[in-house]
């Protein structure tokens, strides 16, 4: 598959995530759209890691890209646990997960 198909798919997924962050008010769905954007980047990293044909001198060319995807997943898991804890705390204090109420954190 030519790489530009994968790039087009990944940027479309990323744009869908951006639109979701902009138009939804539910904090959990905004969070899920961030996950969608992370996955678009992951897909692009994996696709680019496969553009290096293996040679005799470098049989593992491109493996760094796939390891980066692994680390992105690790960081995403940590981020989700803290983020959901923040959302639960927000819900406990305001009884709402509407992001427009987030300005109450000011005082």
């Amino acid at each position: 598959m030519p790489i530009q198909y994968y790039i087009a798919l990944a940027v479309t997924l990323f744009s869908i995530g951006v639109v979701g962050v902009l138009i939804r008010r539910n904090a959990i769905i905004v969070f899920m759209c961030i996950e969608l954007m992370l996955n678009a980047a992951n897909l692009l990293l994996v696709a680019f890691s496969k553009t290096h044909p293996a040679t005799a001198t470098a049989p593992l060319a491109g493996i760094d890209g796939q390891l980066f995807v692994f680390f992105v997943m690790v960081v995403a898991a940590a981020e989700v646990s803290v983020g959901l804890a923040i959302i639960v705390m927000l819900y406990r204090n305001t009884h709402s997960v509407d992001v427009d109420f987030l300005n109450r954190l000011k005082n």
Partner: protein
Amino acid sequence: MGITAIVFWILCALTLFSAIMVLVSKNPVHSVLWLVATFFSISGHYIMLNAQFLAIVNIIVYAGAIMVLFLFVIMLMNLNTRTELKKNLWMKLAGVISGGMLLWILISVVRTYSEQTKVHPVIAATNTGSIGLIKNLGQVLFTQYALPFELCSVLFLSAMVGAVVIGKKN
């Protein structure tokens, strides 16, 4: 059109359709389920690219652990019966337009790129290669990337402590 291209286009359509359904679903539980469908189709792409370890990890970590965490939180808050407050229609329109312009710019960059590389197109090799296998990934991870791997455990520890501290009642 070979079988690889057919599978690729079907997976693309599934990915984009379920990603859009994440946005337009009114019920947050349905959004979570559509996001799981998105992750499964992205895993299908990984399998096509012969990144088998990442495909399995994507299903186990994302579709398994993270999405279950989302479902737990949604059910804890009992959001599935409540409808979202109506957002200003103009704000929604502005969001869609700005996201669409971002997509337009990025797609035109991709089109320019594909015209420039028409003679020697860059190919992402499907159904071949051994860099996605767990043996090779593990060898590189535990030798060259051993320090970042250990730092990840510190990150997880701090995330765990942070989640407990934030979630604690006062």
